C-alpha cells in the first residue's frame, strides 16, 4: 500500500476537514439535546420531547430560533471586541480536533488515506497551544460587555484556565514518557503494542487529566465563570441569539474535543480492544501492523470495514466521556472559588510533579532491567494503582474537598476521633456581641420572646 500523491492528499484533506467539521457540529447539536434529556432523567422530568420523535428535532428548532432572534448590543459595550469574543471562543475548541486520529487508515484506489486531518509531528503540543488560547474568548466577552457580572465571570474563567493548564500539561508528561512521542497516532500505536490502554499503567495521570479537563471546559463542578446563582450567567450574560449560541457551541465542541482526547490518550483511541487486526502505523513509509519475533516489520492490511469498525470504537469511547461530562454536571455541586484554586495549585500541581518523578524512575528502572511487553505494563499498572490509591486516601481526609472551612476549624491530632462538628459550626460559635439582642430593662427596645 502506497502513500498518497500530493494532489490526492490535498483533495482527501479537504474532504476530511469538511466531513469532520460537519459531523462535529451535528454531534455538538445533539449533545445539547442529550444534556437536556439526561438532566431531565436525573431530575425525574421528561425534558424536551415535543419537536420530532423523542425531541430529536429540538436542536434544529433551537438553531432556527437562535438565528431569527433579535441581536442585542449593550449600549456601553465595546462593539468590536464584543463581536470578536464569540469567534475567539469557538475557534480553539474546533481546530484542536485536527490532530486527533479518529479511525484506522482507509485504503482507496489512490493510496492509503490517514483518518486524521493533520498528522503533525507535535500533535499534543498543538492541542495544548490552542487550548491555551481558549482564555481570550471568555475574557474578552466578559470585558467587552462592560457588565460587572460578565467581567467577574471572565476573570474567573481566565484564572481558572491558567491554573489548570499547568495540571493538564503535567498529567500528560507520563503519557509522553511512556509513548516516547507526542503525536497522537504514535500514542495510539504504542498503546496497541503495549497491549494496555494507558488508563491502567497511568491511572493517576488519567484522573488528573479528567479533573483538569473539567476545569478547562468550565463544566460543573468547575463552572464558576458561569455560576448562574451568583453571576447571572457570567461572561456571556450580555450575549443574545446566535452570538450566545456560539458560546454554547464552543462549550460543547470543547467537551467533545476533550472527550476525544481522553479516549485517544488513555483508552487506546480508535483501537478495538482485544484484537490485533487493527494495528496499523506508518513506519519508514510503509504501513505496518507490528514486528515479528525476528524484529522484522509486518505489512498491515487496511480495509474499509476495519476503518468503519475502528471509527465506531472511537465514537463509542468518545461518547462515553461525553456522557460522563453530562452525568457529572447534574450530579455534583459547584466548588467554591478558593477550593478551585486550592485544588489546582496545592493538590494537583505538587502531586502530579511527584507522580511524574515516580513514573519516570519506574520506567527508567524497568528499561535498565530490560523488562518489556506484558510485564512492563503490569508493573506500571501496579505502581500507578498504588499511587492512585494513596492519592484517593489522601483526598478523603476531609482536607481538600471541604476547603477553607475545615482548614480554619480546630482539628484534633491525626488519627484521633474528633466529633464531626463541621455542619454545626454556627451553633457552637458564640454569637458575636454586636449581633446579640440586648435585653432592654426599660422594655422599650427590641426584646426576645421565647
Amino acid at each position, binding site marked *: 500500500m502506497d502513500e498518497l500523491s500530493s494532489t490526492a492528499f490535498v483533495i482527501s484533506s479537504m474532504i476530511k476537514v469538511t466531513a469532520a467539521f460537519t459531523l462535529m457540529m451535528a454531534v455538538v447539536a445533539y449533545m445539547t439535546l442529550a444534556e437536556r434529556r439526561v438532566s431531565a432523567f436525573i431530575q425525574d422530568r421528561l425534558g424536551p420531547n415535543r419537536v420530532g420523535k423523542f425531541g430529536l428535532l429540538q436542536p434544529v428548532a433551537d438553531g432556527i430560533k437562535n438565528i431569527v432572534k433579535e441581536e442585542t448590543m449593550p449600549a456601553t459595550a*465595546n462593539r*468590536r*471586541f464584543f463581536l*470578536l469574543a464569540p469567534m475567539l471562543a469557538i475557534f480553539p475548541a474546533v481546530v484542536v480536533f485536527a490532530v486527533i486520529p479518529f479511525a484506522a487508515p482507509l485504503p482507496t484506489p489512490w493510496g492509503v488515506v490517514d483518518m486524521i486531518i493533520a498528522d*503533525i*509531528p*507535535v500533535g499534543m*503540543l*498543538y492541542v*495544548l*497551544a*490552542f487550548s*491555551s*488560547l481558549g*482564555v*481570550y474568548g471568555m*475574557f*474578552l466577552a466578559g*470585558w467587552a460587555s462592560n457588565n460587572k457580572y460578565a*467581567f467577574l465571570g471572565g*476573570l474567573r474563567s*481566565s*484564572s481558572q484556565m*491558567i491554573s489548570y*493548564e499547568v495540571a493538564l500539561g503535567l498529567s500528560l508528561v507520563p503519557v509522553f514518557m511512556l509513548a516516547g*512521542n*507526542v503525536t497522537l497516532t504514535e500514542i495510539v500505536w504504542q498503546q496497541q503494542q503495549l497491549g494496555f490502554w494507558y488508563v491502567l499503567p497511568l491511572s493517576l495521570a488519567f484522573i488528573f487529566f479528567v479533573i483538569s479537563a473539567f476545569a478547562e471546559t468550565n463544566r460543573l463542578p468547575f463552572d464558576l465563570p458561569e455560576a448562574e446563582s451568583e453571576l447571572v450567567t457570567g461572561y456571556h450574560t450580555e450575549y443574545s441569539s446566535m452570538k450566545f449560541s456560539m458560546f454554547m457551541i464552543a462549550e460543547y465542541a470543547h467537551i467533545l474535543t476533550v472527550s476525544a482526547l481522553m479516549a485517544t490518550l488513555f483508552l487506546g483511541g480508535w483501537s478495538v480492544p482485544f484484537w490485533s487486526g487493527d494495528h496499523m502505523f506508518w513506519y519508514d513509509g510503509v504501513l505496518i501492523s507490528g514486528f515479528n519475533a525476528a524484529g522484522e516489520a509486518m505489512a498491515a492490511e487496511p480495509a474499509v470495514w476495519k476503518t468503519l469498525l475502528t471509527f465506531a470504537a472511537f465514537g463509542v469511547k468518545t461518547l462515553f466521556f461525553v456522557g460522563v461530562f453530562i452525568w457529572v454536571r447534574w450530579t455534583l455541586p459547584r466548588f467554591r472559588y478558593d477550593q478551585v484554586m486550592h485544588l489546582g495549585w496545592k493538590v494537583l500541581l505538587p502531586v502530579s510533579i511527584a507522580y511524574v518523578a515516580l513514573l519516570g524512575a519506574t520506567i527508567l528502572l524497568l528499561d535498565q532491567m530490560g523488562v518489556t511487553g506484558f510485564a512492563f505494563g503490569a508493573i506500571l499498572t501496579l505502581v500507578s494503582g498504588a499511587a492512585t490509591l494513596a492519592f484517593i486516601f489522601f483526598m478523603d481526609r476531609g482536607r481538600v474537598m471541604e476547603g477553607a472551612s475545615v482548614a480554619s476549624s480546630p482539628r484534633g491530632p491525626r488519627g484521633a476521633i474528633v466529633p464531626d462538628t463541621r455542619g454545626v459550626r454556627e451553633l457552637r460559635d458564640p454569637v458575636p456581641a454586636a449581633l446579640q439582642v440586648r435585653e432592654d430593662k426599660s422594655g422599650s427596645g427590641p426584646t426576645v420572646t421565647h
Partner: protein
Amino acid sequence: MTDILFFVFAAVAAGGAFGVVLQKNPVGSLLFMVATLGSVAGIFVLFEAHFLAAIQVMVYAGAIMVLFLFVIMLLNLGHDYRRDLTRGLGMILAFGVTGLMAGLLARQFRGAEEGLSLAHVPGPEAMDALLAEKGAIGALAIPLFTDYMLAFELTGILLLVALVGAIAIAKRRA
C-alpha cells in the same frame, strides 16, 4: 503554496506589529500582538519548526499575553500614559531603538549578500537529517539537557529567584 502562505503570515505579522503601536486601546494593542505572535508561529511551521511554533503559541500567546491581559484589565489602564509616550524621553527612546534595530537589520542583510554571516549556518539538509534522527523535540531537547545543561539550570534558578522575590515583596505589602 508555501510562498503564498509565507506572505500572508508575514503581512499579518507586520500589520499586527503596526497595530500594536497604532492602537489607542491597550486591549486592542494586545490582540494585535497575539495576531503577530500567531503569524510568527505560522512562519515557523512553514520552516518545518513545528515544535518552536507550538511553544511560541503556548508560551507567548497563551501564557504571557494572558498575563498582560490580566494587568491591563485589572488596572483598567486608560489613556493617561499617552502623553508620556509622545514627548521627551519616550520619543528619544522610540527613535533610538528603532534606529538601532534598522542598523542591525541592514548589517545582517549586507552580510547575507556578501555570503558571510550565514555561511556557518548548516543548510536545510543538515536540519532534515537532524530531525529524522532525533525528531522535532529531540533535536532541541537533547542538546538542551546535555551540552547546555548548566545554562539551562542557571536560567531555572534565575526564574525561581525572581519568583520568590516577587512573592516576598507582595507578602510584605500585604
